[in-house]
């Protein structure tokens, strides 16, 4: 992966396979290229070289629209800065991905998922009326409501205090287990990474397995 006017190699010589149902943590320092890798894996961006497959489909020959089509209804996202739309209520934010394709029971599903993350009473609240933790829980409901097969989480606790972050992570893993979703989590937090089935660290543009005590568990 290269970027900028002057060629800058961010990721190189990477080989990674993520299996259905597994949870994978990608660790790395700030600026190591974690988000770039996440963007590539989710098909949000195209690599300057190499091959990528999502759900067994090679991404190389797909344009941005083709890649979007592959994600539709199958991929969920959780972001560090929540990415809730400020003029939409909690319920409407969760409804957003469901509305892209006609769903008869979209609203009841959204309500149900909000209830599952403990926000059944806050459906009509705007993001600015919710705390950071509550906002991230709305984002979790939004990621899982579509029945995602794969969820990407980018530093999901980065903007939260440790206690709230802990609760969010508990919820995330609980939902993941219940739904049998594949989870790719990007973080710089080793403790959080250790809760995943597998951990990889991004160092100098390459992925290295974390072994021994570091991997823990």
């Amino acid at each position, binding site marked *: 992966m290269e970027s900028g006017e002057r060629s800058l190699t961010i990721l190189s010589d990477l080989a990674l396979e993520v299996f259905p149902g597994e949870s994978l943590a990608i660790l790395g320092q700030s600026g190591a290229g974690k988000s770039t890798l996440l963007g590539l894996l989710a098909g*949000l*961006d195209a690599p300057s070289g190499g091959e990528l497959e999502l759900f067994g489909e090679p991404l190389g020959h797909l344009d941005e629209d083709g890649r979007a089509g592959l994600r*539709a209804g199958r991929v969920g996202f959780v972001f560090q800065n929540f990415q809730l739309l400020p003029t939409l209520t909690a319920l409407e934010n969760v409804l957003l991905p469901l*509305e892209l394709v*006609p769903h008869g029971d979209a609203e009841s599903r959204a309500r149900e998922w909000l209830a599952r993350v403990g926000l059944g009473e806050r459906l009509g609240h705007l993001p600015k009326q919710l705390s950071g933790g509550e906002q991230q829980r709305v984002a979790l409901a939004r990621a899982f409501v579509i029945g995602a097969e794969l969820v990407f989480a980018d530093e999901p606790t980065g903007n939260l205090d440790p206690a709230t972050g802990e609760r969010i992570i508990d919820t995330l893993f609980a939902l993941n287990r219940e739904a049998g979703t594949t989870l790719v989590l990007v973080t710089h937090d080793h403790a959080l990474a250790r809760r995943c089935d597998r951990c990889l660290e991004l160092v100098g543009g390459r992925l290295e397995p974390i072994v021994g005590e570091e991997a823990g568990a």
Partner: protein
Amino acid sequence: MTAQRYHALRLSWRGLRRDLRAGDVRALFLALVLAVAAATMIGFFLDRLERGLTRQAGQLLGGDLVLEQSRPFDAALRQTLEEAGLALSDQVDMVSMVSHGEAFQPVSVKAVDDAYPHYGVSRVDRGTGSEALPSGPGRGTAWVAPRLALLLDLEAGDRLRVGRAELEVGGIIEREADPSAGFGSFNPRLMMHVDDLPATGLVQPGSRIEYEILAAGPAEAVAELEPLLERLRRDGVEVRDVRRDRPRLGSALARADRYLSLAGLAAVLLAGVAVAMATRRYVERHLDTAALLRCFGASQRTLVRLFALQLLWLALAASLLGALLGLAGQAALLALLTALMPVELPPPGLAPLWLGVLTALAVLGGFAGPTLLRLRRVSALKVLRRELDPLPPSAWLVVGMAAAVFAALLWLYSGDPGLSLALLVGGGLALLALWSLGGALLALLLRLCARLPPRGGEGAWQALRLGGRQLARRRSTSLGQLLAFAVAFFAMAMIALVRGDLLGAWQAQLPEDTPNHFAINIQPGERAAFEEALVGATEARSALYPMVRGRLTAIDGRPPRQAVPEEARGDNALRRELNLTWRETLPEGNRLVAGEWFAARPSAARQGWFSAVEADGRRPPVPISLENGLAERLGLALGDTLTFRIGSDSVVGEVTSLRDLDWDSFRPNFYVIFPPGVLERFGHSYITAFHLDDGNRQTLRRLVNDFPAVTLLDVEAILARVREVLTQVTRAVELVLGFVLLAGISVLYAALTASLPVRAHEAGLLRVFGAGNRLLSRVQGAEFALLGLASGLLAALLAELAVAGLYWGWLDLPPRVHWGLWAWLPLGGALTVGVIGHLLSRGLRRQAPAASLGLLGET
């Protein structure tokens, strides 16, 4: 409709409803509503007003179309006119002698039928006070003018003799329904029924009689008859219609019409600017939505469809509301005006409604289109990397697209492609100049602010310095706002300026002491005595002009009809005797536009032309001065020679000067002026015009008694009617101005709403650093005031240039510098933007810093 399309419609509708929570969508909606309301209100109003005013002009004329000739019209023509959808009324005009007892008086007879009048009512005193009657005199009766009653000592019920018939005086005419008809006749009016004419025996072969058909009907019907009318003109029939033959009403109407269209356009332009400003913010806010939707798997097409449909809903809702507002606005306006309008206006048509919807779509597409396309190019990766915003569209594309759409609307409204193109090019250049000028002005202001003495505390200087620095920090946004405000103030100022000058020009044309009486037939022997009689009675009077009647018989030696362009062959000047005068100096109200006045050729004027006979017995041509309009119509230029038959003699004149004059001045005006020393030897009389107040009836009676041979014409009724029309148009103009101001405020609202998040962030920061409410309020006030001041200055410059161009090219008014503008526009701008901005940002100052700072994160 497929399920998917239905889903897209529902989704977009839902999205729009949610979006209404955001200020920018509300601003967008408001701007669109205003654009549609302005377009439809002015469309509806103009449509109806114009039809109404044309009808009123028709009332002055007696019909929408008037045909006149010296023999009866044949039945075939009558049938053609009726088949074209026109209602006809017959009228016969002649000069005859009437008597009452021993007294005789020549009168101007107007014989009318049962269909008279097409429009309006006559005011007649039938012995029981003034009444409004929608008909003419009945059979066996006659209505007489007050002057005739005075001269023949008549009262209602008296009998008078007209030719061989005897008629009963049915009433004294205070105002004829068609007062200007017969204006050319100098004798007092007598109106009678056309069926009584045969009994009078006045219609004889050889008698001078004018037969008229007065036709009333829709303008389109008259327009369709144009080929026939052209043929009639060529056959010597005098054809008059409301637009061609009422110069005053015609020009007032044309100007009002243009003004209203111009104001409508200004409102639409302003709304367009507001739409552009609101769209920018709308798009910026939706970049995140678009990126998220991309993440969730939405294709580019889905995104485009979603946002396009959403905005289409917005445009439709705005069209509906705007059209309703426009309809209500014009109804309110007409309710205000109906009292002034003697005619009932036709109901509103549907055409302006479509114009409104079209306007909304065009404004949205043109002013918002390129910015909206940015949403299409959002990358899904933006959710991870915020800096990945797609580049804003090139300013050239945005401005170019908006300008093209605006020019198209301009074309649609004005029907003048040349003007649209000129304004488009001029506007583009002006914008370019504005951009650099605005930048320079902003830089200068900020430099001045930075140099303000740093006095302590929360003083005005500190507020100005801080406010200036805030503006400098977001230079490009500030410049954008500056230009938007400048355009808004410019449009408002221009419409206000044109209104003032337009009304001023109208009022100047008809000042309080405009002559309301003409005196003609003043014999040379009475001249001095008449002048003396007037001196004591009124200050407002024109000079006494000698008048000789002569017919134009040759142009450069050729018969006039052959010498003039084809379309001028039916011109009245070729068919009738012209009133010629002589004069040493240029008459009051005349302007020389080509050649030299006689005084500049002393030898010519003073020698006495009839003594200078050349050796071969032929007289050299006499220098003459010609009215410019006539010269243009007949294709005449300096150096052409005109031959006039006066009595049994001929006079040849060479055109040595051309004059512009104001036919609407209610003063004696002449097509042809000779130098002194040429026409004196022909029989002549004098004409003058003067103003007499209503209460000065005694003077009139004295003049009638002392100068029985002099004919006095009262034109007060015509004057009053013309003033009435101008008053109505003035009201309309003022209301439309109010609408433009409203549209201007919508720009301010949209621009300020769009800048609120950034301002909130700044206010939050200042708060965090310890700024009090008072300081914040002052800093924001100073910032807005500086913006307003700079945009006011720019707008003044732009308005001055544009108004000069408009007057010169479109409204036919002399250009002038408006000094006041340079003072009140910057000050007014500072005050308006200051106050509105201050009010809109009041909420921000009440917010806790945390909330204000959070606001920015939502963009």
